[in-house]
């Protein structure tokens, strides 16, 4: 019997804020559309109420609950031999991949992430089911990890398949 303890490092402290803003944008568009609809056509009051209720539930779930929940779940760690992450909220995943089999290491910064100085690191292996993503890291941490992983992966000389 063996278990794996969870990885140690949390994502950036700004991660929940960025996730919340990212989720808030589409919901805000939807809310504005509903207001416009109400202004143009105020008949069928119950339909407006139902739509507004659904929007409120969606906003609370995706803008308030999900980012906090994800921040509590997300963890990552780069060990001597493997990369290990934990992610998700409703569906949670723990994923481990050996560094000797790493093929590419990418860092990715979306527009919102750049605004807040965040970056994602994606570590791919030869299997499309085995890519490890470490999301919402502080930019300098992401660069450090990418450099570190590239260094270790370069030592191995096998073709990683």
């Amino acid at each position, binding site marked *: *019997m*063996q*278990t*794996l*303890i*969870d*990885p140690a490092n949390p994502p950036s402290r700004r991660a929940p804020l960025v996730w919340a803003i990212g989720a808030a944008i589409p919901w805000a568009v939807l809310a504005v559309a509903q207001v416009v609809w109400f202004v143009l056509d105020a008949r069928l009051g119950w339909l407006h109420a139902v739509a507004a209720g659904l929007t409120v539930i969606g906003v609370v779930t995706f803008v308030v609950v999900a980012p906090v929940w994800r921040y509590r779940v997300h963890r990552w*760690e780069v*060990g*001597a*031999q*493997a990369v*290990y992450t934990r992610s998700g909220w*409703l*569906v*949670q*995943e*723990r*994923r*481990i*991949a*050996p560094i*000797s*089999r790493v093929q590419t290491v990418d860092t990715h910064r979306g527009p919102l992430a750049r605004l807040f100085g965040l970056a994602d690191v994606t570590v791919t*292996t*030869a*299997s*499309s*089911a*085995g890519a*490890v993503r470490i999301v919402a890291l502080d930019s300098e941490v992401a660069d450090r990890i990418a450099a570190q992983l590239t260094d270790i992966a370069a030592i191995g000389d096998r073709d*990683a*398949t």
Partner: protein
Amino acid sequence: MLLVHPVHEVLRQVPLLIGAVVLGSATGNAMWSIAVLVLMVGFGVARWFTTTYRIDAEQIQRREGVLQRSVLSVPRNRIRSVSTDARVLHRILGLTVVKVSTGQEAKGDAVFALDAVRSDEVPALRALLIADSLPDSIEAGDGISPPERVLARWQPSWLRYSPLSFTGLATIAAAVGVIYQTGAVAALEDSPLTQQGLDAAERLGVAATVGVAVLAVLLLGVLLSVVRSLLTFGNLVLSRRDEKGAGVLHLQHGLLRVREHTYDMRRLRGGTIRQPLLVRAFGGARLDAVMTGVVGSGEASLLLPPCPAATAEAVLTELIGQPDAVTGELRHHGPAATRRRWTRALALPALFAVGLGVAAVVAAVPPWAWVLCGVVIAAGAFLAADRSRALGHRVGNGWLVARSGSLDRRRDCLAAEGIIGWTARQTLFQRRAGVATLIAATPAGVKGYRVLDVPAELAWSVAAAASPWVADSDWAREPAHS
């Protein structure tokens, strides 16, 4: 060789040809049709003249294109499998298409195919291409030097599994679709034949007519399935050739369209025994290869079509040399996993029953609805029982085995050294039930092999038992208790 391209070009452009003929007859000037035909044949000839291939020390190269030139090169040491495919027209002319597959999944133009090589050049070409990816260069050219060992040969008795597939019904559905598209049905509606049919139907009554129609479609479907299976797999031979520890697997099948696949055995990472419900009911199974550089599902990875389960198991055992992995007892996943199978299979039928009950209070419900409800619940219960019986895994001796499913039961046997990543996934419900789905990532086959609903505390010990790098990682711990 010169004939294939123009003829195929014409066949490929049939819609254009029809358009040209229509245009020709509409304008009353047959020159239009002839001009288009000449253009297409000319294009085909030009394609043949502009397509060349060469094999040098490091790579094979194909240059092609009439207006756009393209060059496709494949390093020879990256070749994982070589397959040939000869359709009827190719065979009449003594030609074959040679396809070369590397680790990458290529689609469309990126597939390295040499269309129309002379058939008598093919064995030498195949030996040359596949031999080069083997370790100590085996003398290419005389591809028959070591004796071939036949692993399986098609038997007429295998045909008994083919009526149990849906390919025949699918063919009929496709044919009906095409007929509707062409508008032939509208023309038929007023024909005397249809009138006669309608009169006959009135005499027989609706139920009998529907019964006869369904029976006829089923019979036709069975017939088509059997014929297709015979044409595709009749004369199938699976053989293996070993040299200096590196083997080559050779699969050949097809009565009209002949297909041959040659695989480098060092790329074999295991196999999947698949038993769809109907095939399993008659003791059959089919075998797929789990191999790097070969697509994991469908025609490309097929090693054996539906055949007696014992044959499939014997062949897989022969290939991977692990009888335990192929037929050994599996460790079951316990009551939580079984409970989840039942709740999932019965949730919808239960909802249906409740809905029906509510409806019965408000209005009269026809008796057949209750019968239907009973059938759905019984089917759900059978599915749940069958699925929970199937669920199991086995790990050890460097192999991971996972079995699951009912309608499409599969037993995946995967070499642990080919696993390059592990994922333990838990939905909210799985966390409450204390189970996890373990996914082994590999470059071979379908890339991710799932062990469904393992008890959560067991999940990482399965991974650790298969992959030493998990057991040796910085996070591995023996639990304090137990």
